[in-house]
């Protein structure tokens, strides 16, 4: 009798382990750039400019600023170092804001390119969209407060454009024109932010 009941019991109970077994959770970690940004930012906030300067000079931020110098406003790296030397916290914040805005803009432009790249499989394009958005937000999120303090309209525009892009990315066909348009808008907003912030710097050295 027991043996006859067994298959029925197995049928009822067997799916449970698949739902119940645990496979651990993943908490995204900072990369070397965001780690170095936080180190510098917190040192500056604490008024430890000598510490911040050492962390900047030996860290990933400066290396990346040098590597990407061609796509960044001129003198961003040397200006950041000079601001740290002078103990000018708002200027350090502004320059780091420009740097991360440029990183996010480059990601938005690259995402836009890949989404319309016919050489990539449709599945690859579909998965690329959300992943680029995640990376864009990881960088933009670091500077959103600084952006909002200087130009709240840009901050709001960026958030709206990002929400729109996320909506398209979650849709059934994420690699469509809607997502490309939203990414283009993100790139435009960030380019505008970089240009106006850099212009402001030139006018008020």
């Amino acid at each position, binding site marked *: 009798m027991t*043996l006859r009941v067994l298959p029925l*019991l*197995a049928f009822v109970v067997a*799916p449970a*382990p698949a739902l119940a*077994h645990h496979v651990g959770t993943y908490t995204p970690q900072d*990369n070397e750039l965001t780690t170095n940004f936080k180190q510098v930012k917190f040192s500056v906030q604490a008024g430890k400019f000598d510490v911040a300067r050492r962390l900047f000079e030996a860290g990933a931020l400066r290396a990346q600023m040098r590597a990407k110098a061609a796509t960044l406003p001129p003198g961003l790296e040397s200006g950041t170092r000079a601001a740290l030397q002078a103990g000018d916290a708002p200027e350090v914040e502004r320059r780091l804001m420009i740097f991360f805005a440029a990183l996010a803009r480059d990601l938005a432009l690259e995402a836009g390119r890949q989404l319309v790249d016919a050489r990539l499989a449709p599945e690859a394009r579909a998965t690329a969209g959300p*992943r680029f958005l995640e990376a864009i937000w990881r960088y933009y999120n670091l500077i959103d407060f600084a952006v909002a303090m200087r130009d709240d309209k840009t901050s709001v525009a960026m958030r709206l454009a990002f929400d729109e892009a996320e909506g398209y990315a979650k849709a059934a066909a994420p690699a469509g024109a809607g997502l490309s348009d939203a990414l283009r808008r993100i790139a435009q907003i960030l380019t505008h932010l970089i240009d106006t912030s850099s212009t402001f710097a030139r006018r008020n050295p």
Partner: protein
Amino acid sequence: MSDAWRLPPLAAVLVAVVLIVCAEAGGASMVRFKVELTRWARGVMLAHPEVHGLVGVRDVDERILDEALVKFDAGLRLFHLHAEGMGLVILATTAVAATLARGRRVRGVMIALLTAGGAGYPLGYLLWSWLIPHHGIERGKSIAEWFVWMPFGGAMIVALWWLAGLVVLRLARR
């Protein structure tokens, strides 16, 4: 019926002991070969960019690789923990089954389910870890679920409920 405990079949004991040995060896290997394992997994993932949705941009890909490597490591850790635990569970439950199950056939099936289920389930985590670099986190999990976790875990759960029912029956008949 005697109150004395009966030993489970030696085959079940051997499976349990080997499972514990594998757990310990796995744990030690994880530490000793951590760098090599990570390098291997990363290499396989980079060789299959389409599987993991890598886009060729470091800022995007690092996060994807990091998550896969964390899950790869988690699979090895979970194998170590489950194999250790299930080895002991097999020893304990098969001893109870050997003592309380009267019918030879019932006892045999129950011990077989407890042993196979208990020994097979942890191997699913090892399989999942191996599958992650080749097939991605979710697809690897799906394969491990259908081929290992569900059949072996299901067998273990059925056998444990069966054993629990048997204990209740013995209690009621006292």
